[in-house]
């Protein structure tokens, strides 16, 4: 399998009045063809900024991509100017995006049809008529009934779940190589969430694309992704195949997360073990591991040495931690 996208040592920071925020601090990852990859982490860990950096959607100032290589179809996207035609030809066309709030990512004063047609006529140079026909087809495909009529409706006439379906249709309209879904279901209910994910995963098969799911919901990644990256304080702290990460988590943060969420199938007497303390302030990160103050497994080495790089424990499973936690988890 070939990597569709390969990101190496990406660093993005924001210069604010109060100081520099290192939102993404040396992140490397890749996405293979036809893969569903989960990017997990809490709010503020840099998972969204990573995705926005890849498509150069970081507003600058205050944001700035300091370094890194984003290799996509043989070219480094970071070498392109954010507003250049080359970048626009990739954004939306070859890399589709689904954002968190369908309410704010659709333009409220334009019909849904206008917004789906726009993609087709700009990127695929379709005629007005052809674009409209294709749009209706796409809307039908994502499960909008009566698509021929609904296409002339405005976003407010759709429910939250329906709006997100429209977003999925837009993201897929140009047959992209990758679809990035950034918290696609946080604003919707559980049953709608299940509907939307089922739809996205089916679409990935249908359109032969890869899917990146950015989320804080561990259940969602367990259900849908093949491979997972766990992020904390702007870095990837653990990566590996889904099964490996959930069966033998290696990073203390991943272990903490898994122990702190209640599961539908766990014994009820089992007490939740919260991660103590708070997520770090990205403004003044210590040189040591950022998880150190919250880590129950830390050793002397952790206090003395800088944040460790990702190291591979076996073939595909890597952790950014000195401590060998295996056998210590209780």
């Amino acid at each position, binding site marked *: 399998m070939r990597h569709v996208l390969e990101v190496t040592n990406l660093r993005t920071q924001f210069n604010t009045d109060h100081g520099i925020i290192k939102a993404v601090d040396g992140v490397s990852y890749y996405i293979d063809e036809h893969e569903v990859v989960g990017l997990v982490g809490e709010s503020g860990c840099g998972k969204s900024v990573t995705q926005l950096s890849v498509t150069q959607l970081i507003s600058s100032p205050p944001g700035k991509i300091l370094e890194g290589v984003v290799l996509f179809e043989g070219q480094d996207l970071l070498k392109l100017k954010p507003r250049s035609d080359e970048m626009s030809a990739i954004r939306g066309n070859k890399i589709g995006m689904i954002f968190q709030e369908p309410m704010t990512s659709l333009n409220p004063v334009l019909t849904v049809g206008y917004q789906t047609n726009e993609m087709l006529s700009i990127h695929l140079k379709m005629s007005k008529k052809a674009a409209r026909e294709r749009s209706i087809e796409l809307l039908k495909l994502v499960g909008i009934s009566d698509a021929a009529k609904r296409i002339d409706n405005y976003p407010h006439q759709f429910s939250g779940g329906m709006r997100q379906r429209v977003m999925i249709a837009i993201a897929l309209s140009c047959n992209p190589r990758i679809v990035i879904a950034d918290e696609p279901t946080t604003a919707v209910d*559980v049953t709608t969430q*299940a509907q939307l994910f089922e739809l996205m995963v089916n679409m990935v098969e249908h359109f032969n694309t890869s899917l990146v799911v950015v989320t804080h919901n*561990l259940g969602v990644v*367990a*259900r849908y992704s093949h491979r997972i990256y766990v992020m904390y304080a702007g870095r990837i702290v653990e990566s590996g195949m889904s*099964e490996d990460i959930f069966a033998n988590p290696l990073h203390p943060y991943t272990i903490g997360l898994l122990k*702190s969420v209640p599961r539908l199938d766990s014994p009820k007497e089992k*007490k939740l073990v*919260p991660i103590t303390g708070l997520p770090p302030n990205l403004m003044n990160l210590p040189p040591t591991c950022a998880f150190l103050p919250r880590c129950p497994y830390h050793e002397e080495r952790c206090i003395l040495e800088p944040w460790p790089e990702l190291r591979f424990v076996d073939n595909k499973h890597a952790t950014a931690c000195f401590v060998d936690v295996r056998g210590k988890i209780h």
Partner: protein
Amino acid sequence: MSFITKSNLLEVKDLRMYFPVVKGFFKHKVADVKAVDDVSFAVKKGETLGLVGETGCGKTTVGRCILRLYEPTAGEIFFRGKDIAHTPEAKIRPLRLFMQLVFQDPYGSLDPRQKAGRIVGEPLEIHHMVKSRSEYHERVEELFRLVELDPSMMDRVPHEFSGGQRQRIGIARALACNPSFIVCDEPISALDVSIQAQIINLLQELQAKLGLTFLFIAHDLAVVRHISDRIAVMYLGRIVEITDWKALYENPMHPYTKALLSAVPIPDPFVEKRRQRTILTGDVPSALNPPSGCNFHPRCPIAIADCSQGVPPLRELGSGHEVACIRV
């Protein structure tokens, strides 16, 4: 459930809350939004009743009716044996000594210009629960310690606290007047994953320590299962299933409950591969114009023609397990 038993702290009978939809200059009523329609349940002393459902199903409205933040359109609410559903406005305040609310949004529910200590202490003054300045201070400090906050942070304002700490302040405020009953309205859904467990554990510890009774309103079924003794599932203003937590998860009967449970992913790829998924079609209908008969029938995988005829009543099928479905 038709008689008032001593062990029930709260009993809700045939509760209805309709919000009128008005139109035109004279504001004549054109329709009702039936936010809560014919809801009955009881909460025993010391237990936690979980109330789950999706957005707009009326779960928050039920909580607010019980606290009498709304005056219900119809129905009875027995709290400690007395019907409070239509107690006049002027007599409601003493009731708040016994029942309190923890809000969903720890950012919007605290006055940004008041100090944390003052937020927690205000109920003490309003209800004249302290006699002197020093007693007031002692009590506020005690409340801070109760929710595991450092009393030295009393003089800070809300924006100096993290989300989890703010929710602790909200809980301390709710506990200030020693209530016996607390409505927790989505208390953790605005918090980060790693912080949620801290608040859940705190609520459970407080319940054990102070003998509190909770109505826990949430949409996250895994959390509700973890914290509740009994669970009621709501759909579009009605309770469709109510039973103890074990029966609900091991033997869900209502098709909506089944779909809801199967929609919740379990953080374990091995378990997920073996699970059967029921994916519902369509959206929740509008409460302004609910479907005839059973509210759920347009999306129900096992609906028959009769389902659109009459509203199915809650029937007891097994001890304490009530289901509103004619197909089970």
